[in-house]
Every structure is written in C-alpha cells, then in structure tokens.
C-alpha cells in the first residue's frame, strides 16, 4: 500500500483522452441532456401540474414546475458523474484495459483515477450547461444567480464521481453496480427533496434525508435557481466539500488496492 499519493497535473492527459472519445460521438452525447429536460417539462409541466399546481416551499408558494426544475438539474449532475465513474470507468478498467495501457506510461494510478473523476464531473458540467440552455426560454431559472449552477455541477460531479469510483474499486463484476444504484441512487432520486418538499416527510425520514448528498445538492441548486441565496446554504456546500474530501481519497485507495497488486 502506498501512504502518499503520487499525483501531478498529468492527470489532465487522462481527462483529455476521455474528452477526445466524447467528441468522436458528440451528437449522441449531446442528445440526452438536450431532450431529457424537455421530457420532464412535458411530463410535469403539462401532465402532473394539472394535479399539483403549486408547492409550499420555505414559507411561500411556487409553481410545481419551477420547484422540480432544479431537482431535475441536480439529478442529472448526479447521474452523469455517477454513471460515468461506475459503468463507463469499469468498462475502461476491466474490459478495454485502458488503465493497463496507461500504467505503462509515466502516468500513475492516482492520476488515472483523478483524471477519470474529474472527467465524470466535467460530464456533469457539460450536461448542466446544455440543460440550462434548453430551459432558458421557459424562465424557470433565475439569472444571474443561476450561473452559479455551473460550478455547482462540478462540485456535485466530483462528489458523485468519487463515490461512484469507490464502488468501481470494490465491485467484483459490472452487474453488482445494480446494488448501489438500487440502494443509494434510486432512494436519493426520490427522497432528497426532489419531487416534494422534505417537510412532507416525518421527522425521522427528514433526518435520514439530511445524510443524502443529493439533498444538499438540490437545496443549493433550488436556491440558485430561485435566486434566493441565504447563509444556511454554506452548510450544504460544506457537506458536499466534506463528502468529496472523504470519498475522493477513499476511491483512490480502493482502486490502488484493486489494481496495484
């Protein structure tokens, strides 16, 4: 086991490799973040808002569609980084032997993993920018505060990419990713204040939701989207930062244990 990480800016080379591949099929890669918000808007804006017109959130009423728009962006930040650093990274590591090839160059394993996680976060940012552009005409995001959603996407991407990479370091085979998806990602998708305010939940469930990273990402994203910045948002930011500081090194440690043996 290594005790000190051997990490330099050469990790950008790994990031560049992934960007090159992404650009080879950019059209296919652009479609989901362009179309998905439109699907959401149609389903919730036209369909569900017939039933739920308004939501009571932080002492006032907001339209349901404006309520779920930041949640939809947050969920996409989570999905892009998490799935990139689980399934896609696993394919590169296990099936394509991309990491093996990189290990024969001056790159260290720490740099390979860092490049992968930063790339996952970059995908979150790209998807967020595309989504914001698509929904801009609907006036659902308040600017200029909404601009801060872009750096937020990077922070959220590092958080979810790191924990995704941590799972990549421990799963035996690719099918086993179903477990963290089913037990971690799906509950977060539903219970992080995404589709209904957390106030609707009993106190114990609210406490549980506090431990989910998506709750904090949604909180910040919603505040930015409404243009209502308060000082308690720092708590959410600190939570995400601490989450990154824990899971990023843990991901590297698990991957070292898996590959450097």
């Amino acid at each position, binding site marked *: 086991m290594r005790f000190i990480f*051997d990490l330099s800016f050469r990790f950008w080379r790994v990031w*560049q490799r992934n960007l090159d591949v992404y650009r*080879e099929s950019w059209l296919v890669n652009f479609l989901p973040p362009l179309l998905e918000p439109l699907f959401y808007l149609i389903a919730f804006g036209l369909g569900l808002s017939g039933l739920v017109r308004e939501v009571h959130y932080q002492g006032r009423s907001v339209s349901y569609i404006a309520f779920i728009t930041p949640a939809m962006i947050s969920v996409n930040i989570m999905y892009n980084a998490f799935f990139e650093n689980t399934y896609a990274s696993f394919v590169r590591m296990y099936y*394509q032997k991309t990491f*093996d*090839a990189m290990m024969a160059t001056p790159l260290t394993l720490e740099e390979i993993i860092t490049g992968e996680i930063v790339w996952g976060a970059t995908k979150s940012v790209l998807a967020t920018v595309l989504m914001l552009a698509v929904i801009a005409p609907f006036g659902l995001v308040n600017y200029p505060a909404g601009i801060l959603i872009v750096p937020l996407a990077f922070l959220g991407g590092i958080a979810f990419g790191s924990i995704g990479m941590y799972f990549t370091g421990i799963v035996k085979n690719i099918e086993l990713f179903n477990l963290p998806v089913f037990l971690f990602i799906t509950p977060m998708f539903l219970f992080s204040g995404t589709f209904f305010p957390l106030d609707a939940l009993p106190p114990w469930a609210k406490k549980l939701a506090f431990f989910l990273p998506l709750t904090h990402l949604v909180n910040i994203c919603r505040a930015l989207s409404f243009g209502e910045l308060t000082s308690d948002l720092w708590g959410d930011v600190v939570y995400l930062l601490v989450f990154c500081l824990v899971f990023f090194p843990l991901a590297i440690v698990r991957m070292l244990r898996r590959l*450097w*043996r």
Partner: protein
Amino acid sequence: MTDIRVDARNLRKIYNGLEAVCGVSFHVKAGECFGILGPNGAGKTSIIKMLYGFSPLSGGEIYLFGLELTRNLRVIKNRLGVCQQENSLDPDLSVLKNLIVFARYFNIPAAQAKRRAEKLLTFFGLEHRLYDRVIDLSGGMMRRLVLARALINEPELLILDEPTTGLDPQSRNQVWERLMELKSQGLSILLTTHYMEEAARLCDRLIILDYGRILTEGKPRDLVRTYIGHEVIEITGVSHALREYLKEKGISFEDTGTRILIYNGEDSLYREISHHCHREGCLLRMATLEDVFLKLTGRELRE
C-alpha cells in the same frame, strides 16, 4: 555500469500467500535481446509487471538504466516501451489517434507525436489504416499497432510480454523481422515467450524459468549444445523390441510413451535403427531449444 539496462536482483512475488517468483536475478545489457522463457504460470508475466511498476515487488530490487525502480518510476517509465500480453489498444479511437493519445501521456508535443506516429505506422505497415477503428484490424495488425505504440516515446528498452502469441505464421514472421530491425538499430529488448523458435531467432541470451525459479541461463546455441548436443534421433511408433535393444546397448533415451528421443545420437546409431527395426518414423534432426526446454521443464501439461 551504464551498459546495463536491467539489473534485477533476487526478485520475489507473492500473490495471496503463493510464491509466483522466488528469487530471480538477471541482467540485460545495452543493445541485447534477452529472453525469459517458461511454461504457463512459470512467473514470466509477474516479473515483467514488476519491471515496469505495474505490480509492487514482494522482495528484491530492480535497477533500470542504473536507477532504482520504485524511487524513479516516472523517469524510468519515460524511457521504457511496454507491449503487454493482453490487447490494451483503445477501441474508442482510430489507429492514428491511439498513438497520438498515447504520446500525450508522455507529454510529447502534438506535432512531434503526429510525425512519430506516422513514421512508426509506416514502419509497421499500417500507413493505409490510419483512420480505421482498432476493432476492424486483424490480430496481426493489432499486435503491430501495440508495438508501434510502445515505441512512440523512443524508448531505450522495449519490454515485450509474449509479442507473437496467437498470431499466424505470416504475422509472426513480420513481427520478428521488425524486431530484428529495431535490434540492429541498437534497441535493447526484453521479451517473454513460450515459442522456442522465437527465442532462438531473436534472443542473444535467455533464462528458462519454471515455478518461479531460474533453471538455466545462457545463449540459445550454448544451451542446446550443453543440454542436448548436436543432433536428436526421434522415433515414432515405438516397438518393444527397440526399447529392449536400446537398453541392451546402454543408450540413454527419453520415452514419451509414443515416441523415443535419443539426444546427441550418432549417425551410425541412426542408420542402425532405421535399417534394422524402424524404417518408418525414424528421424535424425538438429537439436533445438525446444528439446532443452522440454528436457528441463518436463512434459506434463501446465493448467
């Protein structure tokens, strides 16, 4: 000691309590092609993986270019070319792009990388496939592409782990030609193989490995002379009478059940056997490295 490229001292590798490499020492000189031979599971790949920092050492020391490996890994890897056993080409990228992206891992400037890539792809006969996807290449082309990729940083030492396994004779010969050309240009090569013909053709010196230990070391020709001699009489479809006859005359032989091998057999003995008992299936041939290999490592299957 600048003419020593690889100096491996008492290497050990333990996987989950099993000792795969048990105290192996060897060195590779500049401009030399050095071979590591051994049956499957002998520890060849374990040694290779330790040599380029892919796998930590359980014991021993490695010096490459006179530098201690673990403390100078990044500097050393800049001067190494590695061709791994498993295909690790990037299926998401074209042939040319594979080399250019790989060059970037070495911080080689883009223009220089492109020049080198085109030159190398021409050298390996892939200049007409620059923009094809890797998965559309044949096995032989892929292997040549892996070799081209391993040379992108103009290494001083090329490490090849079974470079021709799974290739057809045409591709294999082409790879050998290219490797010999590189060797003649002064490149040092370290290769593992279990093809004796490959080792005999390419290697100046070699070690034969089994169960993680070195059985013997030397020049291919010397090893053949020492362990086997000049010629081998090989008899198939052996009769009981022949065995009796050989025993009677006190001639030592190796009996595989269906074949008998007499090492360093005399011409006269061959004539005698082929005339008297075995007109068919009796062969006098040159002793080869394969004879040495099988004599030392035995004939049982390794699974």
